[in-house]
């Protein structure tokens, strides 16, 4: 059944308004909830910028994008969440490395909420008092993540993999960097990155596409016709080899948790990024998935007692795979995983594992379209990284075994693997 390919029912209709604002609509017939996200191509990875014509670089403290996301809800007479609440809608926002998104969901007040979303994103009101009080809330958010082994494992692994690339920065920043954020910084970031031509509005739900484009055009002329300030963003050159090959941290966990990161090199991507990412996805599914030899042997021999967890992350300027497992037998786990990586790099993945991985991923992709959150987030992230969620099934169907083995050869080699162990605390000391 290789090559089976299912186009999702859903299609994204995309138009670009005169201001440069991109508007995309994905219809979900029969869904109660209407979901809208207005997102900018700005996230925690941008920490330096230069306004055109300026000589000096402008420093953005770590965590600026996330701080801005929190404070954009502030208004002189309360907050924007309250206005959504008055309509019976819920609002929220998120920040990651290369995206900040503002969203609402409603069932019956879609047009009114869309107006509020534009007002929220395009009409900032930052106050010094508001910025100061938010620092305490964000410090508690950071404290919360420090106690979360999943978050700490993933974020720490990134710092082992990446020496210079800002993908390794924590989106929330640090307790110290948050102190350096002021309303002046927030306005500068808003001027630079919140122009319409840097943003995408995505609607997912049972809506009338033409109505949405009509209302968005009207709101654009009312609120969002400003273009972004022209800025240059400083780019870094990241070596292919990992920053640190091995590290141990200690947390209040029951037993060791091992994270293994494997680093790809963007300069080696042959062909489109979407294809490389999907080949990597097939690779880890075949090698680490529930029906893989590796997972089965580790489970049967009692090295692990839950299936391996794994994931791939690709953008135009980075790519990595990661694997995580809890185990009392760390050396055995790492030894067997390394052997499996070495074998895959030299001998490749077998045809049967590759076909099963394709099937599993095809079904999984189709099922995930039942989640509006998945569709919204993945569509935006893909788009900002030059990919297209709606094309994933066809890209997947076109992945050949050679593409998969190319990734294995590139990534599973000496110097490209980092290992992080979270050990249980000893004598009450945290590393």
């Amino acid at each position: 059944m290789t090559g089976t390919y299912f186009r999702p029912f859903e299609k994204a209709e995309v138009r670009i308004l005169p201001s440069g604002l991109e508007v995309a609509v994905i219809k979900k017939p029969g869904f109660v909830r209407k979901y809208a996200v207005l997102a900018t191509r700005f996230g925690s990875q941008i920490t330096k910028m230069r306004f055109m014509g300026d000589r000096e670089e402008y420093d953005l403290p770590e965590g600026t994008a996330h701080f801005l996301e929190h404070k954009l809800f502030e208004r002189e007479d309360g907050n924007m969440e309250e206005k959504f609440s008055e309509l019976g809608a819920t609002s929220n926002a998120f920040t990651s490395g290369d995206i900040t998104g503002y969203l609402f969901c409603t069932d019956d007040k879609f047009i009114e909420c869309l107006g509020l979303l534009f007002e929220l994103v395009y009409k900032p009101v930052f106050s010094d008092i508001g910025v100061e009080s938010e620092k305490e809330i964000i410090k508690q958010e950071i404290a919360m993540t420090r106690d979360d082994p999943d978050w700490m494992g993933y974020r720490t692994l990134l710092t082992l993999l990446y020496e210079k690339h800002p993908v390794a920065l924590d989106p929330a920043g640090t307790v110290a960097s948050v102190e350096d954020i002021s309303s002046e910084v927030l306005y500068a970031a808003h001027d630079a990155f919140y122009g319409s031509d840097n943003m995408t509005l995505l609607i997912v739900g049972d809506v009338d596409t033409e109505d949405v484009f009509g209302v968005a055009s009207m709101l654009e002329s009312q609120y969002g016709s400003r273009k972004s300030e022209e800025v240059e963003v400083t780019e870094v050159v990241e070596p292919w080899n990992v920053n640190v090959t091995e590290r141990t941290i200690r947390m209040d966990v029951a037993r060791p948790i091992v994270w293994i990161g494997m680093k790809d090199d963007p300069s080696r991507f042959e062909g489109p990024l979407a294809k490389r990412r999907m080949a990597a996805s097939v690779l880890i599914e075949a090698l680490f998935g529930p029906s893989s030899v590796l997972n089965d042997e580790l489970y049967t021999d009692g090295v692990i007692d839950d299936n391996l967890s794994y994931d791939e992350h690709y953008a135009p300027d980075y790519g990595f795979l990661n694997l995580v497992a809890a185990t009392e037998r760390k050396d055995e786990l790492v030894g067997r995983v390394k052997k499996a990586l070495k074998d895959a790099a030299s001998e490749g993945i077998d045809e049967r594992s590759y076909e099963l991985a394709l099937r599993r991923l095809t079904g999984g992709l189709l099922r995930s379209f039942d989640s509006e959150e998945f569709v919204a987030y993945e569509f935006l992230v893909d788009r900002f990284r030059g990919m297209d969620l709606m094309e994933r099934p066809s890209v997947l169907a076109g992945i050949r075994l050679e593409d998969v083995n190319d990734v294995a050869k590139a990534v599973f080699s000496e110097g490209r693997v980092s290992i992080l162990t979270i050990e249980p605390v000893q004598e009450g000391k945290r590393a």
Partner: protein
Amino acid sequence: MRFFEDFKISDGLAVHLWPTDKFRSVHLQVFLHNPLSDETVTFNNLLSAVLTRGTADYPETRQFNTRLDELYGASVSYAVSRRGERGLLSLWAGMADIETGGISPIKVLARLLSSVMFDPAKNAEGLLRQDYISQEKSGIANDMAALRDDKDAWADFRLCANMCKDEPYGIHPYGDDTLLKSIGPEPLTSWWSGVMPGFPADIFAVGDFDVVEALDEIEKSFRGRIRGDSDPGPAFCRIQQARAANFISEGADTVQAKLVIGWRAPTNWADDSYPSHALANHIFGQYSQSRLFMNVREREGMAYSVGSRIEPTKGLIFAHAGIDAAKKDRAIEVMLAEQKALAAGDVTEKELDEAKKSMALGIRMSADSPSALCGREMTGIVNKRRLTPEEAVARISGVTAEEVAKAASGWTLDTVFALMPEDAKKEAKA
């Protein structure tokens, strides 16, 4: 709109079908009712973990997982949960809406889930496999220990364990570790063949199927195998005498302190008073302008994560906040004061209106997720009062500010639990 068509296959075996082309996947879920106890939770957990390792046709785990891959990544999973004092063992199967080998997904899923539950991999003596049992016992023992890794979940559990130490609701989500260690192939096999089939069952299916075919396939797969003749016991118990509130503090090696507070609310999902309690809880800590959010987070800047929830069967209210340990006393003071203010009638029409709209959206949205909708239906079934989303929304729309205050004034503070960073605890002692 009533989503499910209900059918009774036999006493103790009901089927609920929602044929819809809204989703790209098909979902089949079995809920088995049992009395919540250390024994049921421990056995049900271990049994489900062993059953999902392999079937008679695909006895090795890798063979079984390969079969799931062939079905385009079909999934089989389980959960041991509770509604009040009713234990629910749930097993489910799902797959993308793709016909495989000319067989419809609902037929594939009915056979798959039935084979997992009733045709498991066994050894030559007809017992469940010792190797799977040993591995899964070790896995569950590790899960028990790792509950503490998630500090929010751990604080919730420690609150409940203290608050309900004399009630089944307080038992550990994975059961009892001493009992777990003692279970071998014989008792687990007799639990599987003798006890599990006696649990009354509700089977749900959601997807793009023909109702006649789906009912026929489910009946063929489960009739006679689920007897459903045992008594699952009452859905909840209540402690009779009022008692003084407990204040408990425990240590962990963390940066942040986790504060959780439990009240008892004299209500149940089926009661006419329930909507006013649910609405009071919503205003207290469950929507974006809630009392806890606006006061603990926005006004005092003490927390990032703060809120509350209601347990609808037993009638419990839980509030939580992640805070700086130095502010523990202030946070408790503010959280308790907000509950008292609600009880004293400090509720505006604006809050009432917004909270009603927010609850209504949440209720209606459950129809966008098959598992959320099945979960809602089960709360209704356990409490013997099923409501469509419209009926549930109508029920809250008439609640007045006075009724909200009356509900909140009926909440009795039971336990305040703080999970404190070890360093802060040491400093406090010194």
